[in-house]
């Protein structure tokens, strides 16, 4: 099993927004997808995921809607709102600027 990494504060929001950028998903699918894409490096606990989802919904960045899941059961699907779209772009830029700068410092200093 590859090593797990603690997510820095605030990154979870960014990752959730990114996962929802293409399509609406329910909570479980979001955690699965994060795990798959990060090749098991990032594992999100239910205890962090759902409060984060509710917080993002309150801020109006994502919207929730009940729908049928892949195995035809009732599930709560989250999708990105226009506000969320903007927030995602802003956060992604900030994140890239930050990582570039940090990498720069690590390489040269």
């Amino acid at each position, binding site marked *: 099993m590859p090593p797990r990494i603690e997510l820095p504060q605030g990154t979870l929001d960014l990752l959730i927004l990114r996962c929802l950028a293409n399509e609406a998903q329910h909570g479980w699918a979001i955690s699965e997808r994060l795990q798959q894409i990060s090749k098991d490096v990032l594992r999100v606990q*239910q205890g962090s995921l759902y409060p984060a989802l509710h917080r993002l919904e309150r801020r109006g960045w994502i919207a929730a809607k009940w729908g049928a899941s892949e195995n035809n059961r009732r*599930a709560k699907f989250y999708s990105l709102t226009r506000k969320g779209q903007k927030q995602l772009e802003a956060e992604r830029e900030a994140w890239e600027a930050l990582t570039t700068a940090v990498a720069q410092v690590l390489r040269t200093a």
Partner: protein
Amino acid sequence: MLTDLLYRLRSLFRRETVEAELDEELRFHYQRQMEKLMASGLKRDEATRQARVEVGGQEQLKEECRDARGVQLFENSLRDLRYSLRMLRKSPGFTVVAVLTLALGIGANTAIFSVIDSVLLSPLPYPDPARLVTLRQNDSLRNIDDILHQTKTLAHGGGVTIERMDYTGGPEPVQIRAAYVNAGLLETLGIAPMLGRLLSPDEDVKGGPHNMVITHRFWQEFLSGDPNVLGRSLTLNGNRYSVIGVMPASFALPEDETDIFVSLWVAYPEAAPFRGVHFMHTYWRLSPGVTLEQAQADISGIAGRLAQQYPDTEGKRQKTLVPLHQWLVGDIRPALLVLFGAVGLVFLIACANFAGLLTARAVSRRQEFVVRASLGAGRSRLLVQAITESVVLSLLGGAIGLALAKWGTSLLVSLKPAELDRFRGIQMDGRLFAFIFSISLLTGILFGLIPALGATSGNAADALKESGRGNTAGKFSDAFRNGLVATEFALALILLVAAGLMIKGFTRLQSVSPGFNPSDLMTMHLQLPITRYDKIPQQTAFRRELLTHLNGLPGVQAAMVTDLPFGGNYLDHRFAVDGRPPVPVGNEPVVQTLSVMGDYFEVMQIPILAGRGLTEMDRENQPLVAVVSEELVRRFFPNENPLGARVDFARTDEPHQWMTIVGVARDVKHGTLNEPPEATMYAPFAQSDEPWRRWMSLIVRQRGLARSSGLIAEVKQQVWAIDNQIPVSEIRSMEDWMSVSLARQRFNMVLLGLFAGLAMLLAAVGIYGTMAYRVSQRTNEIGIHIALGAQGADVLKLVLGDGAKLALAGIAVGIVGAAAITRVMASLLFEVTPTDPITFVLTTLLLATVALAACYLPARRATRVDPMVALRYE
């Protein structure tokens, strides 16, 4: 922001749905996880175990989701609210006193504010009222025409004078009030008629048609709201007038009450052409964009030109423009502002009391706060909770205050001084609710916060050691409370002094002798129609016959005069003394002139100081005579004997008809009691050469029966026996007339008295509360005193001394404050200086007595402390 709020609200109000959804969402996750683990080959119970571990504590997760949804804030507030209500229910005494204190303060404030709002702040009920101005001086129709002709700054202008007209054709002949106007008046005010049209300029001319515009009230009362009233004609002063328009119900002239509007040129052509008859009150509308200063410069220029052209009538006259609103509120403004100040002080006292109550409560709950703080409650949570409680109290106080204010406002209006009468629109509206709500809320937050800050400050461990009723508990709070009580007494003293001055002034005013004996006098107004009484002999015949009949009734004495004292009317004439060097035309002195018939001085009981009064023998074809007042003698005959001197109206047109002074009468107050007496000349109706004085007030003295309707009916019958077309109006006792003239002073006095009483009551409650609290805190100390042999009287002295110190400190500050502040009342006081020492001494004594009485109850309780119980108390 909005989505955030909606989201929180949904979470709060649809809590069950939201919780169920959360459950379902988490269950779905758990099941998918199970499916996944089983698909990867785990046994069912192993999959269950692992999924449980991953999911973790469900309740904690849900709580975190709720937090994320942001319902915490609301839930806390609701919890605080419920807690506050429970706490308040548990101490009903405290709650009732706190709520009532605020309710009284807020109620009184709001009532006065609503009057101030309608009188001082609301615009006048005419379109574009800021452009309406009036001339301080009355003017003549000729001058109005010339001003309108020459002005470059005034868009419209018009004049009005109120006259009485006889309306015959109804069940009884009655007098109605007619506004004699020019066509410009109603146009200037800018209100369109409800039916028909206004008077037009082409009918406002000499010989114009007899048309009239009527008020809504006249239409309803006299014409039963007849929908086909236009074109209907009524007999007024013996002429037929046709109704051409009806004004809306909301319309009233700025100052006068009237029933109808007629053209001055049509209704009173005898007076209309004379430039010197300055009897119209004028209203003007500034042209758009013109300032008052520009208009004043313009009108002063016109006045200067008129003075040059017509020196004999216009030579000395000035024209001063005043904004109409300022003109109307000018008289009552200082009184209302003083009342507002007074009620503001009452409110401050109420707030101080409220804060004092909360402080005592906060101190006694310090333990509770401390325990909760040590169990982990944040200071801000405790503060919010304390404020919630005081806000609940203050809003309750506000609600009750609103009810009080509603009642108080109608009380104010029912006390109505004439000046308030004009403002019918006094009422409460949404803005007042907002006003009350905000002051309640602010009071609650502010006065909840201060004591709570004190109670929650400091170290929890220290506080716990104090064990409840320790001696150092809340030093801050004690000082704060003492300060509050002293402040209350200072403010209450200021109010009491103000009220005392007012009451003293009013009693002074009431005890001013009017110069005659007003008791048992009945008065009524008669006007002789011009159609049959245009000459002096006919008028004299009617008057003489009526008086002869009336004086024949048993126990009745009757006389007549042109204008009654306190009746509101006044007529003066330019005056000349025979043998004195002539005064340039336009500069003659003026004196008030009254015509009388019958033994006026005897009936009014006006003492004759020298010579004789006027009698029935002073009639036509007899030597012309006059009686003059003391003031006239002081002004014109300072070192001479006036008897035998000859006087007359200053005339330019006719030869003098000198009247010989035969008597000097005691001065009579004619306008109001607080004005100096006028120089007055009395002459017999029968010798008058002014046939236009067709009106008279009948004065009937009948011991003990002045108010009886039998007498009134009898007088009416006697009048109508002579001429059944003569209206009898304004049937009032002389005392009524005088009390109307005192209405404004009474209004000020009653209100200030009420506020001062309220202030005193609140201050008494405040000091009572403080002393009761102190006694309960010092039970232990008092117990020691008693154990060491102190007698009841000593303990009483101890506690009373304590209270007296507080009250006296406040009173001392109050005396200084009152001396500084009451000066603003000077204009409202009659013959009392704002620093009247007697008032200061008496009010100080009164307040000190009340303070001692309020301290007495807790002091009595202190004397009954059982030393054994008290010492074991700790």
